[in-house]
């Protein structure tokens, strides 16, 4: 076997290993089951019952400007969709409990707000940017993912996706 062939094999192996290392990240993607919220170390609020419901999990922080902009939209969505079986859980990644509390007090959102104080859940999910929201079907599977918040466009998309998920009905 020639040196050139050996070199090509080594390079191929290295590239494969690099790709594998990159793929080992635990980023939650579409089609994955979302980690259990109940099992995560969340505090600062009460987790609503999410069993059999369409769930929107939003990761936010008090220091994140687009997160602030998204709250009124989620409040509108909550108002329009809560009765249809949609639950919104806004998970704060604030390190300081006081920052989280002040934000919630100021905005008083109509949906559930909790704090991932140890940042274990957000690390597990490996959120790509702030904010990111995950739309889960009734079975707890991630069906849609919104990276960032882009105002009315994002709200419109989420509403369409919610309509679609609600139309699917209950899974057997």
């Amino acid at each position: 076997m020639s040196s050139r062939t050996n070199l090509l094999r080594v390079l191929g192996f290295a590239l494969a290993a690099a790709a594998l290392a990159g793929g080992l990240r635990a980023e939650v993607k579409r089609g994955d089951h979302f980690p259990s919220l109940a099992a995560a170390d969340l505090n600062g609020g009460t987790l609503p019952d999410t069993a059999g419901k369409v769930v929107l999990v939003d990761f936010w922080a008090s220091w994140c400007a687009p997160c602030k902009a998204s709250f009124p939209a989620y409040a509108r969505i909550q108002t329009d969709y809560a009765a249809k079986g949609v639950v919104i859980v806004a998970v704060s990644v604030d390190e300081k409990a006081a920052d989280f509390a002040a934000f919630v007090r100021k905005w008083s959102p109509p949906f559930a707000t909790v704090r991932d104080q140890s940042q274990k859940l957000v690390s597990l999910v490996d959120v790509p940017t702030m904010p990111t929201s995950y739309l889960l079907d009734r079975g707890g599977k991630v069906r849609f993912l919104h990276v960032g918040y882009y105002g009315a466009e994002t709200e419109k998309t989420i509403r369409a996706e919610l309509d679609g998920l609600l139309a699917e009905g209950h899974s057997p």
Partner: protein
Amino acid sequence: MKLFFGFLGLLAVGLSGGCASQDLVRVKPWQRATLADYTMRPDRDPLDGTLSEHVYFAREAASGGKGVGGSGCGCN
């Protein structure tokens, strides 16, 4: 020769794996509270900005590079 290529392979795997690791080079999005703080903004203090501009002007004989009037010719 085999030993050499084996060593080269291990080295390549180690290096490429390290390069692919996200933990080495990136501050995670949820860890950017300090970076997002107002005090991290370079334009947080208008007076400080004006003084810096003055120093640059006096030292470099140039002005206008930060969006104010003037073409950098020093003729203002």
